[in-house]
């Protein structure tokens, strides 16, 4: 049995930032478990630039952003094991993991930080009928083939879903010589960042069809085409709008799901909207000593925010290990109406500083007002020129506000137009 103060599951941007912060906060015994061959997580295949504008004030590619943290992890001599898969976390925070070199590892941790990231929603989740031909894959899988392996997964491409990976891959495939016929988006708005719509689609004249979906896939061995159709407000295809588009590839970018198998197996409470754990302001779950951060907690639009959140979790785990994080009465947060979720879901009343609440809206708004209420009384009212589902919002609950709260109080966030 190995012993560490903090075991971090996942060596992507979340895991590395959490590890570095925990180290900075005075914990030396840290182990990162990473299932891929290298640290860096999904950033290794995200070779486009646009990372780090918030955190470093520079425009970096994914691997560059990751390498800054990998270099720091090495410099700080934080231990990590790559090609290592965590299989189980027990009630008493023993982590079982496996790799080729060490075989089965049994690691007793004082604190565990979950940083496993997320995965792409597959075709089955959409239940698209049609054939089972080759040429249907998630945008992220295609990204790996093109950027890491250096092979083309298709030449005539339809992309379903206008999430950022889908948009990025539209440009990437175009640059590499493929013809991207269109991007279809089921919703009446894109969930991708505006800059990606401009630079990845508009620049190349790739049409974005909103309120449109793929209703059939054709081709026996390889995809030969897809049928697309407009959808009504209930997202049902409108008869008569069907259109056949010839293509050899259908890329799916239809959402990301936090990878919470380990979390679920140990019985940690999950938020039905985020599909991630329910956490407090330090991102501690309802399982004592287990923290979660990054895309395993909720899907972020920018890695910079993942880094910041993971530093919070790293600090929380360090405080827990050092006995500085005491149990306390809590208030809960609650999204109202279009506010789909809020992270954290709970705040400890003994918290020593301000707490930032992150939330996401379910629709696009112009000149809307974000209202924050505590037990029905307005705390904050802030005008926002633009709100969109693809962009995470935040409000700050100050220490001064926190001091007026009482056990089991409720903080509500709503949007008024």
């Amino acid at each position: 049995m190995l012993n560490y103060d903090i075991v971090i599951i996942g060596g992507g941007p979340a895991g590395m930032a959490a590890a570095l912060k925990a180290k900075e906060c005075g914990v030396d015994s840290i182990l990162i478990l990473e299932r891929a061959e290298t640290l860096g997580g999904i950033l290794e295949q995200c070779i486009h630039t646009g990372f780090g504008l918030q955190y470093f004030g520079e425009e970096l590619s994914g691997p560059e952003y990751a390498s800054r943290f990998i270099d720091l992890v090495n410099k700080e001599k934080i231990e990590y094991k790559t090609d290592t898969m965590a299989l189980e976390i027990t009630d008493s925070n023993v982590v079982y993991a496996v790799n080729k070199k060490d075989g089965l590892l049994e690691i007793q941790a004082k604190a565990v930080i979950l940083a496993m990231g997320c995965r792409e929603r597959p075709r089955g989740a959409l239940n698209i009928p049609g054939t089972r031909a080759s040429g249907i894959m998630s945008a992220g899988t295609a990204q790996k083939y093109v950027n890491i392996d250096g092979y083309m997964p298709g030449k005539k491409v339809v992309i379903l879903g206008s999430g950022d990976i889908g948009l990025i891959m539209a440009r990437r495939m175009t640059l590499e010589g493929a013809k991207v016929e269109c991007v279809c988006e089921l919703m009446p708005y894109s969930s991708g960042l505006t800059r990606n719509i401009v630079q990845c689609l508009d620049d190349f004249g790739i049409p974005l069809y909103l309120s449109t979906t793929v209703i059939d896939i054709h081709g026996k061995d390889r995809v030969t085409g897809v049928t697309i159709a407009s959808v009504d407000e209930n997202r049902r295809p409108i008869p008569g709008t069907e259109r056949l588009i010839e293509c050899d590839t259908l890329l799916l970018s239809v959402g990301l799901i936090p990878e919470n198998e380990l979390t679920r197996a140990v019985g940690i409470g999950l938020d039905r909207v985020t599909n991630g754990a329910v956490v407090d302001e330090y991102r501690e779950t309802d399982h004592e000593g287990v923290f979660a951060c990054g895309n395993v907690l909720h899907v972020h639009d920018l890695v910079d925010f993942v880094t910041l959140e993971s530093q919070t979790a790293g600090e929380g785990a360090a405080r827990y290990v050092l006995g500085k994080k005491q149990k306390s009465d809590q208030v809960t947060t609650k999204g109202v109406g279009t506010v789909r979720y809020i992270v954290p879901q709970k705040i400890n009343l003994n918290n020593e500083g301000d707490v930032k609440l992150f939330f996401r809206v379910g629709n696009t708004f112009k000149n809307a007002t974000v209202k924050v209420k505590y037990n029905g009384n307005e705390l904050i009212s802030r005008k926002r020129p633009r709100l969109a589902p693809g962009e995470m919002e935040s409000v700050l609950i100050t220490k001064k506000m926190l001091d007026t709260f009482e056990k089991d109080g409720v903080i509500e966030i709503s949007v008024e137009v």
Partner: protein
Amino acid sequence: MNYDVAVIGAGVSGAFAARELTKYNLKVVLLDRCNDVAMGTTKANSAIVHAGFDAVPGSLKAILNVKGNAAMSDVCKELHVPFKRIGSFVLAFSDEETVTLRKLLERGNENGVPGLEIYDSEKLRSAEPNVSDKAVAALWAPSAGIVCPYELTIAAVENAVKNGAEFIRNFRVSKIEDDGSVFTVSDGKQEVKAKYIVNAAGVYCDEIAALIGDNSIHTIPRKGEYMLCDKSSGNLASHVLFQCPTIMGKGALVTPTVDGNLILGPSAIDIEDKEDVATHADVLADILAKTQKSVPAVSTRDVITSFAGLRAHLESDDFLIGKSEKNGRFINVAGIESPGLSSAPAIGEMVAGIITEDCGAALNPSFDPVREEPVRFRHMSNEQRKALIEKNPAYGRIVCRCETITEGEILDAIHAPAGARDVDGVKRRTRAGMGRCQGGFCGSKVVELLARELGVEINEITKFGGESKILYERTK
């Protein structure tokens, strides 16, 4: 090459025919037009071992189903294939349907089905709590079970190959010549010679028979579409749940799979195209509505994939197994639709019986009925895992995260007798890519491993053979 018997079609019938034939001193070759075994009707069906009360008494379907069902436990033990005898219910939603249940019970008794019993609604619900409260009675058949049809077929072929049979893939028979004692079977590129032919070509049985001038078979491809639900809804049913056949057609079924998923389906539509396995939104919606009649809690939310299979239906509505009227050394195994999977061990035995009676082959003294149990890392204890990785570090690397499948298991699948040559082949043998992400992460890893082990470039790897390549050329 010269063989005693060429079996055309590596579905479940062909696989068991080949395996039974290797119990004798016969040189057997198994040919399939696809890149793997179990690629036709066998790949996509309800995965049920029926009790045997459906078929008309005295029919081959009735006889072989009951016989095959009885043999299934031992066969699955020998082949190390999970088989669960969970029992089935036929649900009745009216007094009229209750009458049908009684008829089925009588028919089952006549067919020799053990343990049939009619349950009232109370007894039904205590056995199957999620069943609709509109079900007034049910026919209980304790001998019904579930098995994974391609797993069974893969295991049977592996065992046949282990006992000396040969498997040739991508062999689409296009020509058969007979010199009176030896057939020459060709696909236009290669040929094999064999004294006997077993025509187990599923929906293509009629075309294969026509190659020797036997035009007596007319196969009607009958399409069945299905939905597969996530393991989280696998506990909605713990038995196979049928509905009463009515004049409006056969109802839909709900059944758990051996892996803990839930299957909903099938539709039944006669079509022309023998390769059309596309699914359709309206058909799937209809299936859902029908299955909700049995189990109201099933929902599209839990559906992880849909698929379709073709059943090889004959107008006679019975299996056609026996010597062709045109050639006594050409054995037809045609019209093998439901209960073909249930009957497979008995079909294999019957085919071997016909051939050995004709040629008088002696028993093969070195026949070994056991197919070694494949490593299933996900089912092991941590102690077993520790020992396994010490012996072979490849089991220490997880490739498929959703299903916890190791590199070692994938290498085993590739190097097994008649092993996997494509991504779907690895998936069927190991479950890599069958989980929630459906191969999003591990798909490219599996491609890499296949390329490495088969000694080819990764852009030569296919999803399921033929033109189903996954990658084009290098980007640069």
